[in-house]
């Protein structure tokens, strides 16, 4: 049984298809990056996979269950979701926010598990600060700790690195890869193709609501494929000493 499966799903709003004929089968213990230009359907795909939106056609299964067939609490023990940004109008302390991740388990040692998750995302020093007083990147790391505290076999993350500085990008991507090595199934929407190429096991390249290519980073993130989807001329160069390749836009637009 594959932990995340989409079978020919489509999602349509007011007659406009946001997803068309998307099929995926994600292996356990892998880190999958979903990439693609703005409006390609990345966020919609993750929301449908996470059971937040019901696909218009096709079926989704998380840990073998169609999300609509299990109770919300049971689903919350199967998968956790990190949205793009969590805005809090009321001043919960960060530790309280992370402890909310333990809600599906209703356990007594919520606090120690929450603190461990905050340690992982380098946010323990914020534990008694009010969440709204943190910067955007700090809030993202606290929210990530909340998601980790949920301790689910499947994790969906929507741009977990978008507002992070370089060192915390490395920390978060390393953490996600570590989770997948420990057996978790991680699916993350990423904008930075170089991060995707370095850290992910599999890459799903989305284009206009469809899967344009799916496979290992080197299979998918070729200069031709990226250039076609992003409509920018692309150069892929092997770095002389780092041991991975870099995906770089060439100056000037393609047909300009």
């Amino acid at each position, binding site marked *: 049984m594959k932990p995340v499966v989409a079978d020919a799903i489509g999602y349509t709003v007011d007659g406009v298809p946001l997803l068309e004929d998307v099929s995926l089968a994600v292996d356990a213990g892998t880190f999958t990056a979903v990439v693609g230009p703005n409006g390609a359907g990345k966020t919609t795909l993750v929301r449908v996979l996470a059971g*937040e939106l019901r696909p218009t056609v096709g079926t989704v299964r998380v840990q073998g269950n169609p999300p609509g067939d299990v109770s919300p609490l049971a689903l919350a023990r199967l998968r956790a979701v990190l949205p793009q940004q969590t805005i*809090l*109008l*009321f001043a*919960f302390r960060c530790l309280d926010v992370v402890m909310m*991740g333990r*809600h599906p388990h209703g356990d007594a040692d919520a606090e120690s598990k929450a603190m461990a998750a905050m340690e992982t995302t380098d946010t323990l020093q914020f534990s008694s600060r009010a969440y709204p007083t943190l910067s955007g990147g700090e809030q993202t790391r606290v929210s990530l700790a909340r998601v980790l505290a949920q301790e689910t076999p499947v994790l969906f993350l929507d741009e977990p690195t978008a507002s992070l500085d370089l060192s915390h990008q490395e920390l978060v991507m390393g953490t996600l890869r570590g989770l997948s090595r420990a057996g978790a199934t991680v699916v993350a929407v990423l904008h930075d193709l170089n991060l995707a190429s370095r850290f992910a096991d599999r890459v799903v390249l989305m284009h206009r609501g469809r899967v344009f290519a799916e496979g290992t980073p080197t299979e998918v993130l070729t200069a031709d494929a990226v250039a076609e989807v992003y409509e920018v001329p692309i150069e892929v160069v092997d770095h002389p000493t780092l041991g991975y390749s870099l995906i770089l836009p060439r100056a000037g637009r393609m047909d300009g």
Partner: protein
Amino acid sequence: MTESRRLSGRTVLAALGVGLIAAVVVSLGSGAVSISPRSVVGILLDHAGFDAGTTFTSQQDAVLWSIRLPRVLLGVVVGAGLGIAGAALQGIFRNPLADPQLIGLSSGAALGSAIAVLALEASIGAFAAPFGAFAGGILAGAAVYSIARNQGRTEVVTLILAGIAVAAVTGAGAAFLSVVADDPRLGSPLFYSLGSLGVATWRLFWVTAPLVAVAVVWLPFTARRLDLVLLGEREAGHLGVDVERLRIEVLILCTLAVGATVAAAGVIGFVGLLVPHAIRLVAGPGHRLLLPASALGGALLVVVADVVARTVALPLEVPVGLLTAIVGGPVFLWLIRRTRREHGGWG
């Protein structure tokens, strides 16, 4: 500077509880017939079957037991209902402005109550007013909510704008009925904008208290889920909360409480807005403490406002809603400034 200093839940509840008891005793003793706190306790013990050895006149006994006690206890119930409903509504709508009056619930209830009193009281008796208030509140709440709903989100500002419009129409409708029907059971038009505990009787208390009690006892069971909703509707869903069901549950309970208070004491503003914000400032936004503390704080505010309302201009009585507004407005402004300093304001 950014460490959140907060009082423990036990401290807050104990302080509010002691304050409420003191306010009740002072209120019971205050008025045209003055009764010392000692005699107040003596009379109450006497009715409970104990002889406390205090002396009091039979007039004091009659005033306290038949007039003031039902009124003060009704104040406790009304304040508790408004306080806890304000806290729960702000939580479920993720909206710091979601006060029963501002989102149209109170005025909808007032109109429903007035209609029910005219149309149904003859047939179903004392429960006509709270029944009509509940129906009116639900209709007003559902209208406001459906207008504020857009693509799976509740628009924070639209909710308040729609609430103001619905409150204006229904509040005016209730006041209009009270003018044209010229029926003593409806009370004065002021009842529908500033409220009054002046009509309190034991019977009114016993009709109102159980309805408010349902909300006060039940709502704390939603506390944990309300905390999660504050993270966001999507986030709460990811964490296993059936947000739509919770919203219906909370809205029904709040309308039950608010409807019962409006049927008994009219529209008293500011309690549901002021009290939860004050509690959050000293004890944080967690609903496990916020809900019971807002019930106690609302009761305290209404009891204090009522004793001032009926003694400040003796022998005249001013509407209790004037007092909650006169006290509540400045305190709320101060709260806004404090909140901005401590956690960055409301944006």
